[in-house]
Structures are given as C-alpha cells and as structure tokens.
C-alpha cells in the first residue's frame, strides 16, 4: 500500500470516527432537549433521588479530567521524562473530559438557560460557586500548560505552570469531594474522607483513560509502546487502584463503626439490591481486583492486559459513582432518629430510581464531547508520545 493511500485511509477513518462522535453528541442533544421541553419528569429523577445518571457521567468526567493531568504533573513537577512527553496528550484529554463533564452538569440543570445567573450571582459559602471558578481556572491553566509544553520558546515556563496546574487540580478534585462532604445531614456524604478519596480515585480513573487513549493512538499509528514505559505506567495504575480501595474501605469502615450509620452501610453493602451488587461486583471485583490481577500477575501485564485492566477500572468507576451518588440518596434521611417514619413524601422509605433514556443520552453526549475534543486535538496537535526520540535525545546529552 502506498503512503498516499494509507494517508487517504487514515483520513477517511478519522472522519468516520469523528462522525460517530458527532452522532452521539446529537443524541445527547436530543436527550437534553426532551428534558428541557417536558421538564425532569422524563428523567428517572424525583424529589428523593434529585441527582441521577447525568451526575454519574458528569462527576466521572470531572474527576477523571483532573486525574489525567496527573500524568503531566508527574512529568513536570516530579521530572519524569516518559511522563513529561505525555503532557500535551494528557492536557488535551483533560480539557475534553472537563468540557464533557461540565456540559452534562449544566444541561441537566432545571433551568440551563440561566447559566449566566451562576456567573452574575455568586454565593461565597457555596462549594458549587467555588467550582465555577475552579473549573474556569482549570481550563485556562490547562491551555497555558499545553502551550508551554508544546511551544519550544515557552518551555522555560512549563515548570511553574505545571506546579500551578498540579495545585489547581488538587483543589478542584478536593472541591468535587467537598460538594458531598459538606452535606451535613446525609449519612452517605458528610465525611472529611471524601476529598482525599476523590483525589486518589482521580489518579486511577485519569490514568486508566490515558492508557486507553494512548493504546488507541499507538495502534492507529502501527507503533508499539516501549515495554519498560508501559510497565511503569501499568504498575502505577495498579498502585492507584489499590490506594483507592484503601480509602474506599476506610470510608465504609468508619461508617460501619458509628452505630447511627450502620443501617446505611448495611443497605449499601448487603441489603440494598442493585447497590451492593454494583459495589461488590462492579467496583470491587471488576473495577479493582481483576485489574490489579491483570496488572501484577507474572506473565500478564502486556499491552492487551493493560487495555482490559484500564477499561475495567472505568467500568468500576461508573459502578462506584452510581452506588455513591444514587445509593447515597436512596437511603432515607434520618430526620426522626429512634422513630419509624412513613409519609406520602417517602419518609423512611428507600427511594426508587430507574434511569431513563434521555438521561443516558445526555450523559453519553458528554462522553462524546470529551471523545471528539480528544480525537480532534490529537489530530491537530502533535501529541503522539515519542519515547524513542526522547530516549535518544536524553542519551546524546
């Protein structure tokens, strides 16, 4: 095959992939439009489960966005060359994920047409309002970070910008955890463990997304990633998954220890039907134990194992967020401790929630936005990690 026809095929494939992304974004628009026109009645959400599937998608993307940038931080802040050359790719994926996550979060609002109000009316005590600054700052810094990492004239600035980016992303993920940690009356949420837990989860989820995109890029370009580098990255993924498990366990163990929280924990971990199933089967088994085994078992850990492990970590992330966000709301609020309560408004009852198609489409549309930005970004900018070149350059010094 001549190089021209290869490039023609390459171009055709790019447009097919882009068209697929646009199609899913359009389906997401239809989902949003349906919710906008008819109200949230077309969603599965109600007065008890007020945040549903769109929030699972959105929070996944926002947490993973800051996690992906961690790749850049390891390079810039901690001076690791294989990670440094991956900074541009990490930056583009992060911008894509944050865009997708924010799009879902905004379009799920009851009044998305009033987004401007969020900018004109600011409540300093609201962590949501802080997040408006943190998200826009993240975008600005990520663009600057990309610029200083890709433009030779500005390489000198890449380190300070990288430090700022690292600090910013730690703040941003903490604030995502704080959205829940500040909910004083909710058994599932009011815990100071949540910000660090979200930070560690972001490391694992971001790296998993990165490894998948990287594998796709290497396959697209018919290249094979350096085994030593892949080995380092997959070991890091295993480590992040194990630390995540530790923090998730600490969060549940502290809850189990407090008698007033035992009912909630038994619901999430044993009696709650779909929630324990997703927690143990989805997050613990599929999303943590199998990936760790794939990564660390001698003889495994090759590029295919890493792809499967990364994909499983992402499946586990959705399972965990579903349990955390929806299961956390489904368990009744403890309004009358010591009493058995019942009412027409669901007091004392487990909240029911069945996700609807418009919600799923909206969430998928957000993922498609992240995918499209990554696809186009990697096409327009030279983000392919050049390990061999970096190695040669290093050796020649």
């Amino acid at each position, binding site marked *: 095959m001549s190089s021209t026809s290869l490039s023609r095929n390459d171009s055709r494939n790019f447009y097919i992939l882009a068209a697929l992304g646009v199609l899913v974004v359009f389906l997401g628009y239809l989902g949003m439009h349906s919710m906008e026109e008819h109200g949230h009645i077309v969603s599965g959400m109600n007065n008890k489960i007020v945040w549903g599937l769109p929030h699972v998608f959105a929070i996944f993307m926002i947490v993973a966005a800051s996690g992906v940038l961690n790749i850049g931080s390891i390079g810039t802040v901690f001076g690791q060359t294989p990670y440094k050359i991956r900074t541009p790719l990490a930056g583009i994926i992060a911008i894509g994920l944050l865009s997708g996550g924010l799009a879902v979060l905004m379009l799920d609002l009851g009044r998305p047409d009033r987004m401007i*109000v969020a900018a004109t009316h600011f409540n300093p005590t609201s962590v949501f309002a802080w997040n408006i600054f943190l998200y826009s700052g993240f975008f600005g810094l990520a663009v600057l970070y990309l610029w200083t990492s890709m433009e030779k004239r500005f390489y000198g600035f890449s380190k300070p910008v990288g430090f700022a980016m690292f600090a910013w992303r730690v703040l941003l993920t903490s604030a995502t955890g704080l959205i829940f940690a500040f909910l004083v009356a909710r058994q599932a949420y009011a815990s100071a463990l949540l910000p660090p837990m979200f930070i560690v989860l972001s490391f694992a989820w971001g790296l998993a997304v990165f490894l998948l995109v990287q594998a796709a890029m290497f396959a697209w370009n018919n290249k094979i990633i350096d085994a030593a580098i892949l080995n380092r990255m997959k070991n890091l993924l295993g480590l992040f998954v194990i630390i995540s498990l530790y923090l998730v366990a600490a969060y549940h163990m502290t809850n189990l220890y407090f008698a007033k929280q035992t009912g909630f924990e038994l619901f999430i971990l044993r009696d709650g039907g779909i929630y324990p199933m997703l927690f143990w089967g989805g997050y613990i088994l599929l999303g943590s134990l199998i990936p760790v085994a794939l990564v660390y078992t001698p003889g495994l850990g090759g590029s295919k194992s890493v792809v499967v492990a990364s994909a499983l970590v992402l499946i586990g992330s959705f399972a965990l967020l579903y349990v955390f966000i929806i299961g956390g709301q489904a368990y009744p609020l403890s309004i009358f401790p010591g009493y058995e309560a019942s009412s027409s408004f669901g007091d004392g009852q487990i909240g029911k929630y069945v996700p609807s198609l418009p919600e799923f489409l909206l969430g998928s549309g957000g993922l498609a936005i992240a995918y499209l930005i990554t696809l186009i970004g990697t096409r327009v900018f030279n983000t392919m990690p050049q390990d061999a070149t970096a190695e040669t350059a290093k050796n020649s010094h």
Partner: protein
Amino acid sequence: MNDVKLDPQTNLDRRDFLTKSSVGLAGLAIAPGMMLFDLAHGKAPGEPASNKVRWGMLIDNNQCETGCNDCVTACNTENGLSGGTKATDSQWIRKVQLKDMQTERISSLPMMCQHCEEPPCVDVCPTQASFKRADGIVLVDKHICIGCRYCMMACPYQARSFVHEVLTDQKTEVPRGKGTVESCTLCVHRVDKGETTACAEACSKAGHNAILFGDLNDPESAISKRIRTVASTQIRADLGLNTGVRYEGI
C-alpha cells in the same frame, strides 16, 4: 383703655404650646392605627422585612390527629399545588406517621421547611436564590434559581420539591416555575398582610389547634409564652440550625 402689652416671651410659649399639642394630638390620632397595624404584624407594600420579628411555628404533636390531612389540603389550595403524591409531585407540607421504636407509641405530625436560622440550603445555593428574609422566612427566588437541586441535597428535612413538569393555573401570589426548587414559604404572602399561615388556620378550623404561628422574638406573643412554659424541641436539634418550627410532644 389701656393697651394690653403682649409679652413676647408669653407669645412664643403659646405658639410652642400650640405646635406641640397639635403634634401630640395628631400622634394620638394616628397611634391606635399604627398600634393595630403593628399588632397585626402586617407590612406595607414595599416595606422590607424586619429582623425585629422572627416568624415561627409551634406544633403540638399531641393535638395533631392521625389521619387528619387538613393542613396539607389547605397548603395545596393556598399555594396552587396539585395535591398529587407521586415522587415527582411537589409537597410543601406532609403528614409524617411516627412509631417510637422502643415504646411503639404511634403519633403523627406535619413536616415542612423548618425555616432554620442557619439554613444549609442557603449556604450551598450557588446563586443565592435560596435566601433567608430578615424575619426568618426561608425562600427561593424563582428568578435566579438555576435548578441545580443542591439545596435539596443539603436540606436535612427533605422539605424541598423540584418542579418536574410544566405548570398551569398558578396563583398570582405564589410564583412557581418548571425547573426550579420550591418549599413552604410560611405563607409569606399572607403573613405580610398580617394573616396567619393556611395550615395553622385549617388546623384551628378543624378544632385541633395543633399549629401555633407567631413571632418568636416578641416575648408577649402566644407562641413565645407557650415555648417558655412547655417543653418543645427542634427536629435534628443536634445539627445546630436553630429551626423556626418547633414541636412539642415528641
């Protein structure tokens, strides 16, 4: 005939006396009206709410009859709510049946926004749409609520509803809107006219008198006097929110 010499000083005193007495008389004429207005706690249109007042309610659980739903019906009628009880329908007030798990005593009480002094919904609202009026009433500004539902997540009393559907036939005094959050307004439109809340009125009409509405800051108000003499509690008092709605008998 001798001219009467007017002492300029006397003249001035007389004028001063006349001025002062006219002001005094005018004051006497207006005062009863002002006093009545003040007693009724009405508020002139455009007059801002005063922090000298803190509106609240005392709910007597012993007087609240299990099975009676009059307060809920009155609230729905007053505020133009559908009265539906689907999980997506708005319920500003609800009757909660309680069973003491130790003693098995059964009781019921009305539950609504507790109009906290430190409302978590106001703290978390990104746009300040959730706000507390100077007189303690917690409200949602329907014009700047973006429908994020964070306040519903933060409310310890599950007191807020989200408008899931398009609304028709709304009451002009009670603005509501699809895609925004709402809750008990403590019948602010009635209170500003010096009236009591619809739920308290309905409860009295039914002869239960379980809901006592009034000014918690006025030591002479019926609610303040009662709170001083009987044991009352705040729901989830452990959260330290200092609710404006208190309960006795639980």
